């Protein structure tokens, strides 16, 4: 049975306790930095910083490795292709047939790898330390219309349900002799109809029942609604937020002034 991972790690650390809005904005800023920073050393330091945050928030090795694994294909691809993507440059390290690997192309590749990884890890840090409910709630508080927020919540909520459903459907059809692994692409595609069709029918049926259930619980009864959960902004949140902004602006300023930690 395919089990869809829930990313949230239930711990009680400083980062877990931060207001989701502070975290969401920090992640956006961190991703901007990922794009902005252009030298390997800065990116590397930034990467180390994110990892130390992960350690601090008790995310655990398993989740860290999960994060590394999910972006591994892209990482490896960029690295392998770097001599082709960034040809030329000095000094030449090795020559493999028509390929020339230079220090410059190597560092360029490393830069892109680090960039992708810092961006991915910023997002993972958010998802590991923020429950889906707080995440959606933060977004709604930041101006996302409630209906979209509810839709997003339900989409996240039903991922494991659909995962389990597809698992059961696949088992049902396999028990009737369906061999999904066999045959060429076209034949395989046709076989998957036996899984896809019941999945669609069940999903639609579930959506129907769900809409009745939601209407029965007073959805849309009033133009305005109460939000039971309150996000309380604490002093710690404010201080953290201010710090993040200051650090971000300083890095950007230094960068615009041409300060680099490492130059090729």
């Amino acid at each position: 049975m395919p089990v869809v991972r829930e990313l949230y790690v239930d711990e009680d650390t400083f980062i877990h306790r931060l207001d989701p809005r502070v975290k969401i904005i920090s992640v956006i800023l961190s991703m901007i930095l990922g794009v902005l920073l252009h030298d390997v050393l800065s990116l590397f330091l930034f990467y180390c910083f994110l990892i130390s945050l992960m350690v601090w928030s008790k995310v655990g090795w398993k989740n860290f490795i999960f994060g590394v694994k999910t972006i591994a294909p892209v990482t490896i691809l960029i690295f392998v292709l770097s001599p082709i993507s960034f040809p030329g440059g000095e000094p030449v390290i090795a020559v493999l047939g028509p390929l020339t690997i230079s220090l410059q192309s190597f560092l360029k590749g490393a830069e892109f790898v680090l960039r992708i990884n810092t961006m991915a890890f910023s997002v993972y840090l958010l998802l590991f330390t923020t429950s889906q409910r707080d995440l959606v709630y933060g977004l709604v508080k930041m101006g996302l219309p409630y209906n979209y927020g509810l839709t997003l919540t339900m989409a996240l909520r039903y991922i494991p349900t659909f995962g389990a459903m597809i698992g059961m459907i696949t088992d049902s059809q396999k028990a009737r002799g369906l061999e999904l692994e066999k045959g060429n692409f076209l034949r395989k595609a046709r076989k998957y109809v036996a899984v896809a069709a019941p999945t669609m029918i069940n999903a639609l049926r579930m959506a129907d029942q769900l809409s009745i259930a939601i209407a029965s619980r007073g959805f849309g009864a009033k133009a305005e609604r109460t939000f039971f959960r309150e996000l309380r902004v604490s002093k710690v949140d404010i201080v953290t937020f201010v710090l993040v902004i200051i650090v971000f602006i300083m890095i950007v300023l230094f960068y615009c002034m041409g300060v680099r930690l490492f130059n090729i």
Partner: protein
Amino acid sequence: MEESSNIIEIHDLWYQYPNSKEHALKGINLTVRTGEFLSIIGPTGAGKSTLCLTLNGIIPYFLGGTMKGSIEVAGLNTRKYIPSALTSKVGMVFQEPESQLFSMTVEEEVAFGPENLKVPRDEIERRIDWALKVVRMEEFRDRSPFKLSGGQKQRVAIAAALSMLPEILVLDEPVSGLDPLGKMEVFSVVSNLRKEHEMTVVLVEYEVEEIARFSDRVVVMDSGRILLEGTPSEVFKQVDRLRKIGVRAPQVSELSYLLNTERKLPKPIHFITFSEARQYLVREFFEGTKPRTSHSSQSNMPKRNQDLTRPPGEGKPCIVVEDLTHVYEGEVEALRGINLQIMEGELIAIIGQNGSGKTTLVKHFNGLLKPTKGRVLVRDVDTREKTVAELSKLVGYVFQNPDHQIFESSVEKEVAFGPRNLGLSESEINQRVEEALRIVGLEKYRAVPPSTLGLGQRRLVTLASVISMKPQIMVLDEPTTGIDWKDTLSLLDTIKTLNKQGHTIILITHDMRVVAMIARRVVVMSRGKILLDDTTRNVFSQPEVLKEAFISPPQITVLAQSLEPYGFPRDLLYVKEFVSNLPYVRKKHHASS
């Protein structure tokens, strides 16, 4: 002010779904008093759910169609209000927990209703506390509903409806998908609502024993009409009439019915509940007779039906399970050292709560799961050496939810899917489809899209689609869940036929009456282990052990066991047996002679 005491008033209500030729409701007249507990029973397609949906205006507002007649709920004409405006009057709980719980946590689920009604925050807080307390789910407040058991999910659904402080609570088959423990949990909450919170409750269910216990009034519906209406005793004493409609009566009601016809009682009797029956029997048949310590010393042997007493262990084994342990990735052991032999031609039932390992065990029989430790032999072949497709020729598996496999455009094609996967010739496939359709009695529907059939018939389609693969062994996973008594009986007949033809049948079920009716041997599972493995009689005569697995034998068996001090046998399975074991001379005659 006689009028104001009726909270629901329905007069000559007709309703037709859009794109449907027939009316789903045909002239319903019904009034429900404030604080009343009304139960609605009837076969599938009777219009019970449709009636429920008219109570909060989902019909016709949401689903369209045409409606005639008048309906008033809590003083409001439901046709004039949108459903969400009626939610503070009528709370709804539906059958499928998965499609009514959509929040990340239990707390949010319960808060959703009052949030929509713009209830102030501190008031919502109070309502959550109260509602979760009523359903006894306080400690699950921050859990994800998805990770709860079936019974817990339905209790959350009830709390989510209660938090809107409705005047009426409507429950549409809230327990029909649950295991015995889940049913018990939900029913105890529902009966408490009635007793302690004086709420008006409308309940649609098949569990007549429970309905008889706490309903004020029972309504029997069939094809859009109300056929019978009255107190539980007025309704359930009409055992014969109910049977014709396709609804079962509590076993104790069947008992009183049989006593009335077989024994010339001076005055006809009617049992509705267990305690009523026991009291009467003790008073009339046993009081004054010496309580016996053991029934084995009885001079007259207990009379029993013979056909089911065949001991397990006959014939040659077709499935051998040796020291089977199964661990799902990253989870606890689902099976812990299972040893089991299933003989050719057996009809065996596997019972136990959800999560006890029943499904995990039987999924090893056709190779869907492979042992973590130990081994499983199917006809002397180790399942690890075969693919699921290869094993599907030997072991057929009918899954619980027919909608997880139905996808073809006609019944015929659906039934042909399996044989086609086996790579058979076209003429062989046709022949097998014919035969399978004949066995389940669906020849009439061969060209019909299976998804348009009723649940009972969809089950038969999935059964036929396994029969057509001609496996010697068949696994049926909860085949009677959610279908009415009429469909259950015809399904059981089909299963018996298949067994007589030589198929080994392995049945997973939560319905102990079904077990008593057809299984020769019962395996009871609990926490990944086999708790009991014996003949049906021997298993049901150990209620103390069964309690560990939260299973209770059929009502009639429990009744017999409660009379054990008077020398009554403890392993009776049928109402007929029960009557034939009652002394012929009643106590009072006894005393006068």
